[in-house]
């Protein structure tokens, strides 16, 4: 755990300094995508890695966050900060409702019903033209006020630092979560439900609380995305975001803190550099997932998490 924390602090320091070296619009754009993905992956990892359930409809929270920010900005003219908070609150509230229904189920049933929730939201966003402008989406979401009037490069750098701050907030929240009674209880339920109940843990409550936290994080990512891209359409509920979340978390290492940081860096870079391969790119990702599941089920960060055990055994 200490090793993971130090690695994260080091990564944060590098990330802070990166824009000083990389004075380039395109590279900064990639940086923004990375920090955005870290928020999503960290959120998804709380459920997959710690609670041990697989919410295949996790994009629901991303979408709700994005639409909340889009509507807040375009219809009500709210500033970025207000939209960010509202997006967290709305996503968390929806996470509560969705969790209260779906966390009574387990395994494949949980997976499918959460997916249904996201699909329903996508269809609503596509058809409720009066609110969401349907498939045309909501365009022209303004940039945060403090970035107005800056050059393109400085705007990107501004977004990068903003996103980095938010991502760091998510990772810190995850760190606190893992080291709290709540996180330990979640792991104990994942490892052995009956024993967890025998010490008085109520699995449903643990799952629900985690789901709400994860939803708030994903909602925050959604609001950030909306203000960065300045356009939100129904595809925020779509499956492509889901796929990248899954790949990032599995590749990076589920149930670790470093995993959802490593995963996004690799996946975003691969996505950019494999652009030449067009459709083949997704097939390559498919192969990567298969390889990870077969040969490295703990992901890239798995060995880090296991180190502790060996260190403990060596001391005895």
């Amino acid at each position, binding site marked *: 755990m200490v090793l993971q924390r130090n690695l994260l602090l080091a990564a944060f320091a590098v990330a802070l300094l990166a824009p000083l070296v990389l004075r380039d619009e395109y590279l900064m754009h990639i940086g923004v995508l990375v920090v955005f993905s870290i928020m999503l992956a960290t959120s998804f990892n709380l459920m997959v890695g710690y609670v041990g359930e697989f919410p295949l409809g996790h994009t629901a929270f991303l979408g709700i966050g994005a639409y909340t920010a889009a509507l807040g900005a375009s219809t009500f003219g709210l500033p970025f900060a207000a939209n960010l908070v509202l997006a967290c609150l709305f996503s968390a509230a929806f996470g509560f409702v969705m969790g209260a229904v779906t966390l009574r189920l387990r395994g494949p049933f949980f997976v499918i019903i959460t997916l249904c929730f996201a699909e329903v939201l996508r269809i609503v966003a596509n058809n409720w033209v009066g609110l969401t402008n349907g498939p045309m989406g909501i365009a022209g979401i303004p940039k945060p006020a403090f970035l107005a009037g800056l050059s393109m490069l400085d705007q990107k750098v501004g977004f990068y630092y903003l996103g980095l701050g938010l991502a760091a907030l998510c990772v810190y929240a995850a760190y606190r979560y893992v080291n709290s*009674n709540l996180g*330990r*209880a979640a*792991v*104990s339920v994942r*490892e*052995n439900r*009956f*024993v967890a*109940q*025998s*010490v*008085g*843990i*109520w699995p449903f409550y643990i799952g629900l609380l985690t789901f709400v936290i994860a939803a708030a994080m994903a909602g925050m990512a959604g609001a950030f995305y909306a203000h960065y891209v300045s356009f939100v359409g129904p595809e925020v509920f779509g499956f492509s975001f889901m796929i990248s979340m899954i790949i990032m978390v599995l590749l990076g290492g589920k149930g670790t803190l470093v995993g959802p940081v490593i995963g996004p860096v690799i996946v975003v870079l691969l996505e950019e550099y494999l652009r030449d391969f067009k459709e083949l790119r997704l097939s390559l990702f498919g192969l990567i997932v298969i390889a990870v599941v077969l040969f490295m089920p703990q992901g890239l960060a798995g060995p880090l998490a296991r180190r*502790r*055990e060996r260190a*403990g*055994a060596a*001391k*005895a």
Partner: protein
Amino acid sequence: MAPVLELKGVEAAYGKAKALHGIDLRVEPGEVVALLGANGAGKTTTFRVISGLMRPSAGEVRFDGASIAGCSADAVLRAGLAHCPEERHVWPEMTVEENLRLGAYLVSQRIEIERRMERIYLRFPRLKERRRQSAGTLSGGEQQMLAIGRALMSAPRLLLLDEPSLGLSPRMAKEVLAVIRELQGQGITVLLVEQNVHNALSVASRAYVFETGRVVAENTSQALLDSPDLLKAYLGG
């Protein structure tokens, strides 16, 4: 004296498969009582019903006179009834200390948790030596001690122990029995499931014999030990 625990006509089922067909039993304060029987006789299911992990389909469960049938597991634990599940399940990835700490999950005062932990370390010095080690690296006997210690972290008045000597060496099994006697000395009532009849009867004052979801005999340990025919008839051993 009023019984600590009383079951009346308890029935329970896994889906459509009925596992308990009307169990009656009572445990007096300070007693050690054993449940005997072959695999699948319903002992573990009875434990699950008592500790709230399973909802009985019929019947009554009373703990200190209050009905706890169908209560959630955390409510039952809060009332002072702890369940140490079979196969000495600990959380192998967590340290010994984390395992113990989770045993006091419902206790919010830090000082109280530390005090209980000290008491348990005093009783099981091996655990103290290994408190920073992950539980998966402990030997079978140590894991069993950890599982018992974890159950004791909730400071129960009644402890359900499911097969505590399963898979242990005879020496470790003796050690577990000694712990049970000690618990009794501290005024904790123990209800015990045990495959090894002689071990069980050496600590328990009374025993219930289970067969296919029913209680088929109930007697003092002495009487059961004195009539091997009776035991053989029910347990085939």
